[in-house]
Every structure is written in C-alpha cells, then in structure tokens.
C-alpha cells in the first residue's frame, strides 16, 4: 500500500463548548504502514488532538474502540481502512448517551451485564484442587467466554435501543448463557428466574443484527435461543 489521503466525516460533540453535535469533514494522509481505521484515527489525532475516542490493545481483544463505521458497528482496530467507502462516516455507537465525540456512556450496557450475576456460583466447600470438568463440558463454553464486552451487538439491537433499561441485550444474555452452560455453576434456577420476564429475555425478536456485527464472530442469538429452550424444558 502506498501513501494516500482518506476523507472522513466524524461526529463531533464537546459538551464543554458545543450546543449540539455536528459532522466534521477532515482528511488525513496515511503512511504505507497504516492499515487499520485505528491507525488513521491516531494520525488524525496527531493533526487535531481534540478528537476523542477510546482505544487500548489495537489488536481486537480489549473491546475499547467500538464505533459506528459507515453505518455498521465494529472495532476500529480490526477494520481495514482501504475498502471503506469515502468519506468514512464515523459515529458513536447508537442508542447510548454520547459523552463526547466517539465516546459513549456505557453505564446502561454494563448495568445489564452485571444484572445477570456474571460470576460462577458454586456453594460447595472449595476442594483442595481444581473442580473437574470434562473436555466435552468445557467445549460448551466456547463461543461464549470469548466476549470482549465491546457492545457492538447490543447497540445494534433495536430491542436494546427501545428498552436499554429493561432488555438485557445480546451481550448480557450471551454472558448469562456462559454461566448456565458451565457444569460447575449451581445457580441455574436463579439465573432462569432472573430472566423470566416479558422484557429481560423475551424482547429478543431474533433480528440477528447482533450476530452480524460481532467482531469476535460470536452468536448471541443462538445463546438466547438456548436460554429460551432451557426455560421451556424447565416449565414441562
């Protein structure tokens, strides 16, 4: 790749000085080694240090730099800059309050995550050594434990937009199923009770947006389906 100039249209809002958000047109020249959208943002920031966004690992494992990129949620550090239609339109994740520029207030998202009791519950006295789990039982956790809590999924889910306070959302439900699926966990009934509600689980209408955007290739819809199955099985 050679040097090239990329055009951006970026959502800007600084509560300290702006009455309302606006879109800023800005361009930046990239070095041949700049590959990812996050590289471009780093260069943009070198030019204008007032552009605010979160980032850390730059390799798709920390979940910091989720944003809306040309209309679709994704991680800046895993998105190739070339191949994006220009101007590249960057907005904060939809459906959450904006703090500044591309930074959203994640409180509601984490509140829902915390609401499912995201920790192993096992009330037996701790044995001296590890609790045993067969490789097959362990396999059940694949596709669940890898979630990086980036919120791409929940903020692309219409049900979450309308009811962020009542619907747990795909990320939280994926985490709920991660513990339901763990043979070491003893709180199955409490976990299901906690979701037995017209909103918390049942607002999911299988629209699949969440699966479409997950940068880790996870499938919250499938996990939600499995929780629904467990509810049904428990009822009979």
């Amino acid at each position, binding site marked *: 790749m050679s040097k090239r100039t990329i055009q951006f249209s970026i959502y800007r809002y600084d509560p300290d000085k702006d009455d309302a958000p606006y879109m800023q047109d800005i361009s930046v020249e990239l070095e041949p080694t700049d590959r990812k959208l996050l590289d471009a943002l780093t260069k943009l*920031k070198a030019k204008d240090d007032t552009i605010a966004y979160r980032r850390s*690992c730059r*390799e798709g494992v920390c979940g910091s730099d989720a944003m809306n990129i040309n209309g679709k949620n994704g991680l800046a550090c895993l998105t190739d800059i070339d191949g994006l239609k220009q101007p590249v339109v960057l907005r904060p994740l939809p459906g959450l309050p904006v703090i500044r520029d591309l930074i959203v207030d994640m409180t509601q998202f984490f509140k829902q995550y915390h609401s499912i009791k995201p920790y*192993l519950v096992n009330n037996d006295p701790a044995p001296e050594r590890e609790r045993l789990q067969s490789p097959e039982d*362990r396999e059940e956790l694949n596709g669940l434990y890898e979630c*990086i809590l980036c919120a791409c999924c929940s903020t692309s889910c219409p049900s979450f937009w309308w009811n962020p306070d009542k619907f747990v959302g795909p990320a939280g439900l994926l985490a709920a199923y991660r513990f339901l699926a763990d043979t070491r966990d003893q709180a199955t009934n409490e976990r299901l009770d906690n979701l037995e509600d017209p909103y918390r689980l049942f607002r999911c209408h299988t629209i699949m947006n969440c699966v479409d955007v997950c940068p880790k290739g996870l499938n919250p819809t499938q996990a939600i389906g499995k929780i629904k199955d467990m509810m049904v099985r428990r009822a009979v």
Partner: protein
Amino acid sequence: MSIPVLKFDAVIVGAGGAGLRSAIQLSEAGLKTAVLSKVFPTRSHTVAAQGGVAASLGNSEEDHWHWHMYDTIKGSDWLGDQDSIEYMCKAANEVVVELEHYGMPFDRTDNGKIYQRPFGGHMSNFGEKPVRRSCAAADRTGHAMLHALYQRNVKANTQFFVEWMALDLIRDAEGAVVGVTAMEMETGQVVIFHSRATIFATGGAGRIFNSSTNAFINTGDGLGMAARAGIPLEDLEFWQFHPTGVAGAGVLITEGVRGEGGILRNSSKERFMERYAPNAKDLASRDVVSRAMATEIKEGRGCGVNKDYILLDITHLDPATIMKRLPGIREIGIQFAGVDCIKEPLPVVPTAHYQMGGIPTNYTGRVVVPKGDDLASVVPGFYAAGECGCASVHGANRLGTNSLLDLLVFGKSAGDSAVEDLKAGKAHRELPQGAAEQSLARISALDNRKGGANVYETGLAMRRCMQDHAGVFRFGDMLKKGVDKILEIEKAAHELEIKDKSMAWNTARTEALELENLIEVAKATMISAEARKESRGAHVRDDAPDTPEFPNGRNDKEWLKHTLFFPQEGNKIVYKPVNMKPLSVETIELKTRSY
C-alpha cells in the same frame, strides 16, 4: 482551590490481573477499598496474554515447584532474588487452583483436570527436559483470567472507579504513602484519594519503544508517579524483546514460522543470517537473531521508506504447508500487515515485550527502598504488584508464563500484606499540606502553555530514540549518545502543549500526562543500561562480549547486583545485592547459562 477528598482504607491503582487479584483480598476482608483504572477492568492489557500461566500442578507428568524455581533462577541469569522466586513457585498451585474456583474456563485434560502445555525454559528435574507446566485456556489465557478475576470482584462487591487516571503519589513528611491524586476522565475533576494503604498495579511501560507488543495504555504511570515521589526504579535496563513482531503493529509472529523454513531478508533480499550464524542461520537463538536484525537496520539495510524493518519470507513454501501449519500467522499477516504471506514476505522487527524491572518490593508486595544502612526498608502504606513491581522474580530475563503467575502471587501477597497492616494499624495519617498541588500544577501548565512541544512528535522522538539506542543489542557509544538524547527529549516532555482545553474526556491531556510518565521510564532504562557494563539476560552490549573469563559477557564479580535508579537525586544509581538465599531450600549456585 479546594479539592474533594475521598477516604478509603485502601486504594488500588490498576485493574489488570495484579490489581484485581489484590482487590479480592481486600474486598473479601471487608475493607473499604477503591480500585482505580484508566479503562474498564477487562480492557487492561492482561487480556492480551496468550500462552498460559505457570504452575507445577503435574497434571500430565511429574513436576515440582523446586524444578520451577531452578528454571526461573536460570532464566533470570541469576539476577532474580531467590527468596521471591521460591515464594512464587511454591504459591503457584494454590493461586491457579483458586482461579479455577473463580470460574476461569481452563482447557481440560481427558480426566477433567487443568490442561498444561510445555513452554520455553520450563524443564523437569533441574533442567533435564521440557515439562508441561503452562496452564492454558486455548491461546486466550489472559482474556479468560482477567474476566474471571473481574467477575470474582463483582461478586465481592469491589468498588471501582472506572476511567479514572491516578496522577501523583502523596507522601507525608516521614515518607509514608497516604494516597494518590486522580482525575475523573469524563469530567476532568481532580480528587484526592486518602488511604491507609496504596497498592500500585499499573502494568508495564512497553510504549517507551517504537515497536511494542503492548497496548496504548501501557505507559508506566505507576513508575512515573513513584519516580516523581522519590521512589527508586529497579533494574529497568532489562527489557525482553521478541525477534518477530509485525512492523508498525507490534503483534507477535511465532518462532514456528522460521521453524517451517522462513527466511529473514534485508533490503537487498539477502539472507543475512548466513553471515551472523553460518550453521543455525535463521534458527539461531532469539538474542542472536534480534541482534542481527538490529544491526542490519542500523547499518541502513532495513526495508521500506524509512529502512526500518526486515522481511520474513515464506513465499518459497508450499501454500498447503502454510495453510496447515501456520493458519493463524497468515491471519495476523493479513489483518496487521496487509500481506498474504503465501504471496509476499512479512515486515517484522524485534519487538519490545516486557519490563523485568519496576518498583522495588519484597515478596510480601511491600515497597522497599534504601534508608540509611538498610537497602530494603519498607515504605509505610505502599505496595506494588504485577508488571509495575519488581519483587525481583524475573531478574535479567523472564520465562514465558511467569508473568501471569507473578501477578497472581504478588497481587495476592500485596493484598494480604495490606490487610495485615491495616488490621494492625491506626487511623489515616494526615494528608500533607498542598497534597494535590503537584498534580494541579502539572495540569494547569498543560492547559496554559503556548508554543510548547507537540505530544505526538515528542512521543515519537522518545520511542525512536529508545529503539535506536537501547534496543535489542546495545553498543557502549550508542548508549552514551542515547543518554544525551533522552535527556534532551525529557526537557520537551516537560514542556508539552495541547490544543484541547475541554474538561470533558480530554484525551489530549491524558496522553500528555502519560508521556510525562513514559519519559521517566525511558530515562531510567537508558541511564541504567549505559551504567551496566556487562551483558546479562536481555541486556547485551558489544563491549561486554563472550570471553573465557566472562562467558556470555556476564561478570558476576562486579555486576551480580540490582540497579536502583533515583531520578530525583540527580539520576543517581545505587546498587543492591541480589538475594541468593531462598526461604527454605539451598541456594541455586551460579552457573553459565546455556540451553
């Protein structure tokens, strides 16, 4: 101006593996604890660790903590303290089993136990043959561990201050630590956290180098804060480099690529390793390869516009072999170099990975500094653990999987020590006059300065200087010049200008404050490295070559000692002896290191 004061029994700065592990001890002991982090806890860089965590569980074959201790001391090139190393290796099984009880999704053996794999330098029976000691969750051990530790803290109701940046350490007239100042990133508000115990778990500072496997947030804030408060920094000349990280991105490429026949080439496509290691060529040991690569780049034979990388070529291999043996590497190449290694060579550079040194502590996690005749006198109220601490278990070179272990063991012991001291101790010590003044002055200087240095440019100059002068292979004259250069850059780093003046989520300001911390670490590294006139572990200099008198350039007569760097006292260095005496077993005697 009056600054709000929040009172806690304990304040933990950092919510990576080390911070979260110590938080569990304090929260479960019912103490009022605040955990501060620049990022949401699970975004800390512990999340990026892949390979595993060491413990001699012996789930697949016989193993013993004493063997692990031997390997760690040998790996450290005998610079590690043998009491701390014994303590860590002995505690490993317990802390790993605890993690499992917290819910960590370890891979499993057929009989349901924690899965273990072999790893570099970990051997059975005092160096005999490789042993399966690394406890792993696929190649996502750090992710699985960090989430499990966070979840346990949710259960324990730990109080987090997420997206708060600690700015400065507060010490009273007697030198005791009484808390920190911190800034809420969302509002720019500065607050004093007044505490009886302060634990630093701020992680590494890999971002002092231009090419690093570390995250953007790994800026050595804990070391910067400690240094500004007069605490010395230990053994910072020792940095671990990996030969092949993706140029520019820093993401690691495994040695297995060269094992499959990969060849390193310079700008004229020459297979230069033939000149440096006629027999082993590209498969020579890590330090030899890294040093050869650094020499090629330094002598102008690097590739690309800036002549600053080397090409790793596997285009001569059968594509089917690549797809079968190296599919993950192909993915990384495509993601981070935009290169399909089946068709084009990968741009790579030796990549800074891990800081062996840090804030000096003993194995109980208490920070220790020289005072009078005592070279390791405890600083009341101050603890450190994880990559920012130096207990010193890694000495001059860390073994893979020993860092995740370090942060569990010393995170826990620092937490336990704080609980013990808090239960024995009295009320809060008084805050000194103007406790927040230093922080406020730093911020207001940033907000008001006109015509100062640019943060991005200054950071780049520092990273390039470190890469060129204190990289993989070190030269006496280059180190000398590096010291002059870094002191020049330090001046700029204290004269930064930012354009963003907002109180809301001002990332320009945080980056400037981070650079003020990075420069402390860069300076300590360069000056300590210049001063150490031998080669040991990761610190290899041309003027301390391999000779019969000094095998591998190591000089135990003069240099078997830890560096303590005092930036507040004219960049003075004090040396302290290595602790060669373990807690219960015999000393592992000095030997020439070879594998």
